[in-house]
């Protein structure tokens, strides 16, 4: 089953959000409009709007308020992707040329800044101070997390705590914030908002860990990039942290990455083979599952509702994701 099937019943609301996203990125400048539209049309799972929509059902659901939050969160995510592609010098995203590739770094920077500003402009339709405090804090942490990621590249001495903090900031916080803001925008009880935040946080952690596992286990066709690409970029993820506990792997890794510029495809294949001989992948899945169970547990205190069942299905889907 596809993830999108778990929230198929939200199609009408997601269409409204899609339309609002298109409106939000309109610009007087042809290229700016074109680059933003290309990005929007590249698609994506719209998982953040989905969480906003679902968590908005536990209070007084008002599609206009929910739409405002969902659009801003998706725009923030989109803007970060445009800038990330400049950071990674990435030619492709989801199999399509990136903004940086099509128009150059400078236009990618302007497009990202434009979309981010549109996100903030849009969210100011909400006057709720708490919503702004939550979102702005998340935005600062998102950037801080990405800065940490650059700092920690090729640092084989980092530990589990460093990794977990990084993925919290990089992925989990924005998902958690999507859930929390959905609840806040619908004036759901504070207790629910807190539980939904934690649900989103645990789901986000689990999601990112599985993403990091798939980087080693999925095929190039499934990933849209070579397997082991995260490692090649110097990102020390959970499977690597566990694999490094194996002395033979650690020795091989240090040797191959003595000069990261000179790591070949054959080196990478050797490392991937060696990693699969260790217990790193099953151990990483166990950590991901641990977070997933915590996410599901958070939903225990939430009233029985179709949205709750969908949140459960999404969590379970993420846990089973193998490609």
């Amino acid at each position, binding site marked *: 089953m596809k993830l999108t099937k778990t929230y198929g019943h939200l199609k009408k609301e997601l269409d409204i959000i899609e339309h609002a996203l298109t409106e939000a990125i309109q610009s*007087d400048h042809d290229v700016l409009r074109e680059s933003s539209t290309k990005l929007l049309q590249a698609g994506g799972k719209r998982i953040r709007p989905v969480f906003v929509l679902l968590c908005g059902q536990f209070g007084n659901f008002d599609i206009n308020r929910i739409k405002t939050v969902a659009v801003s969160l998706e725009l923030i995510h989109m803007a970060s992707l445009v*800038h990330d592609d400049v950071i990674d010098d990435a030619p492709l995203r989801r199999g399509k040329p990136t903004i940086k590739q099509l128009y150059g770094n400078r236009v990618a920077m*302007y497009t990202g*800044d434009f979309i981010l500003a549109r996100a903030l402009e849009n969210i100011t339709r909400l006057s709720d101070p708490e919503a702004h405090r939550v979102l702005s804090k998340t935005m600062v942490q998102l950037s801080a997390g990405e*800065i940490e990621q650059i700092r920690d590249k090729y640092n084989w001495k980092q530990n589990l705590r460093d990794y977990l903090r990084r993925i919290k900031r990089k992925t989990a916080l924005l998902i958690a914030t999507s859930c929390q803001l959905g609840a806040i925008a619908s004036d759901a009880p504070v207790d629910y908002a807190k539980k939904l935040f934690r649900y989103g946080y645990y789901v986000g952690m689990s999601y990112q860990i599985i993403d990091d596992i798939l980087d080693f286990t999925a095929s190039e066709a499934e990933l849209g990039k070579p397997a082991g690409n995260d490692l090649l970029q110097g990102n020390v993820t959970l499977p690597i942290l566990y694999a490094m506990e194996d002395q033979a792997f650690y020795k091989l890794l240090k040797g191959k990455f003595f000069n990261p510029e000179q790591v070949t495809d054959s080196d990478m294949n050797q490392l991937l083979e060696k990693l699969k001989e260790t217990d790193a992948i099953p151990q990483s899945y166990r950590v991901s599952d641990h977070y997933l169970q915590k996410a599901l547990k958070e939903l225990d205190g939430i009233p029985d509702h179709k949205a709750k069942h969908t949140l459960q299905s999404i969590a379970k889907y993420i846990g089973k994701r193998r490609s």
Partner: protein
Amino acid sequence: MIFEMDGRVQVVVLQTPSVEVNKLKALINEKMHHSYIEQYVQTPHLNEDKLYMLALILNNTGLPEYKKNQYIVTAMLVQMALDTHDLVSNTDRDVLTDNDEKSKQLAVLAGDYYSGLYYFLLSEIEEVKMIQVLATAITDINEYKMQLYYKDIHSLETFFHVFKKIETLLITRIAAFAGETDISEVAAEWLLAKRLLNTKNISGYSRLDRSLGHWSEQIPVSCREEALHAIDKFIHEETSLVEKGLAHFPAYLSSIKTCMLDTLRASASNKSSMAEEG
């Protein structure tokens, strides 16, 4: 203040640096401080003229001190975010050294970090309207940047007009938001005149580069000489506009009027009390 004149580096001692501007600078630097970013990114110089103008405008309002300071700090954070992102060049990764590559990556993230901080600081004091004003200014500035980048301009006059918008829009929008519409337009002219005057002792094409920053690259080589002459013309025009605008200032703005005239004249006679931007 250090500048180049006839190929020689000159140092001019700043006169009466405003205590307030220095305090604000310290506050902004404190908010922006990030040791890892500072290690790799040569962050752009904080534009003291803009800081000075914001202080002038907001001092004239009845805003409480904390709010006024937060407006200024966040506006300058936005300016720094935009300026930092202008450091990201189109240079391919393969020709960059590891350090240059890291510096580019961190420049991207530093700008995003400063943007997040502006939103965070205004959220803390529940200034939702100001968040919107700054966000709208950012979208508009980026539209203008695209115009210059794609050279959607057919004359030097239009070029300078768009450049002026990029340089001053943030300040004029804040002035308008603070209800200081009388100052708004004159402030833009003052800022542009000051910026161009600050380079008047620099000779040759380096004056063009210092006046327009990286936007000078958008001027075709065949037009650079003409652009150099145009700078003096624009200084003259903008200065006249400032003087004309100030002549019509209402009486309650007389202290601002004096400050603006004095600083502009000081710049013209090379005795600027404000540091030139780097």
